């Protein structure tokens, strides 16, 4: 699924305008627990989370996260956005909950990452 379709489905806001919205996203994973994310992400994955601290971006140095969706109206601080820009990680904000966002994307054909 293309990133621009994800933005449309989630009625999302793209925080880094320079990102390539034509980028293909192969799968996704949703969690607010960092260890869960580390344990379950073994392939290029879109992360849906309510966490907005710098460790979420730091995770992208360890594992292959192709983009981050901040759910339920959460918004990261500018320094976090800047960290993502340095790493070329697309950031999207949505007002939908994690459950709703995951359900909408799953129904639209975005598969769960292999764990």
């Amino acid at each position, binding site marked *: 699924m293309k990133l621009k379709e994800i933005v449309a489905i989630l009625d999302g806001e793209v925080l880094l305008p320079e990102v390539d919205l034509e980028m293909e996203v192969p799968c996704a994973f949703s969690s607010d627990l*960092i*260890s869960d994310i*580390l344990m379950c992400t073994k392939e290029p994955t879109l992360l849906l989370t309510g966490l907005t601290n*710098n*460790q979420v971006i*730091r*995770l992208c*140095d*360890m*594992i292959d996260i192709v983009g981050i969706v901040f759910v339920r109206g959460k918004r990261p601080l500018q320094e976090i956005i800047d960290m993502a820009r340095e790493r070329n990680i697309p950031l999207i904000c949505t007002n939908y909950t994690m459950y709703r966002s995951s359900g909408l994307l799953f129904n639209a054909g975005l598969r769960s990452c292999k764990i």
Partner: protein
Amino acid sequence: MGEYWYIRPGLEESVNGFFSAQPEADMALESQIPEKDFNQAGKGSAEVKNLLKRLGVNPGILRRVAVAAYEAEINVAAHSLGGTMMCRIYDEFIHIIFKDMGPGIADIEQAMTPGYSTADEMVRELGFGAGLGLPNIKKNSDALHIHSERGNPTLLEFLIYFMSDE
């Protein structure tokens, strides 16, 4: 006194040989882990990953080293009074050693149980404290050794082979 050893089956001879000989490393890297500093935490692991990447280590192994090192780094920042991370790189594997300034793990077996956590509220709010840190380190390591007791510093070290299949 608490002592924990895990060696991936089939690697016993090589791992035991390494720990009894403790040869000099081809390359070494050291970083400090200050207590509760979550702006710094994770930088050391990212550095190690980048170094191994430049050395041509395969992506699956890079991921395992990064995840195990990051979890251990977060553990030191979250649960101890601060410590150090020392990486020693050899031809066939990486040996990473974490030493902190205490206060030690009361019960290592319990701490190894998935879901068990003593993380405080501030640490949990950042998304840590799932109780998966040590299990995740074990899962990604070929050998793991922990030495700890209540009231004293903790030593955690692991080996990851560059050629292993897991």
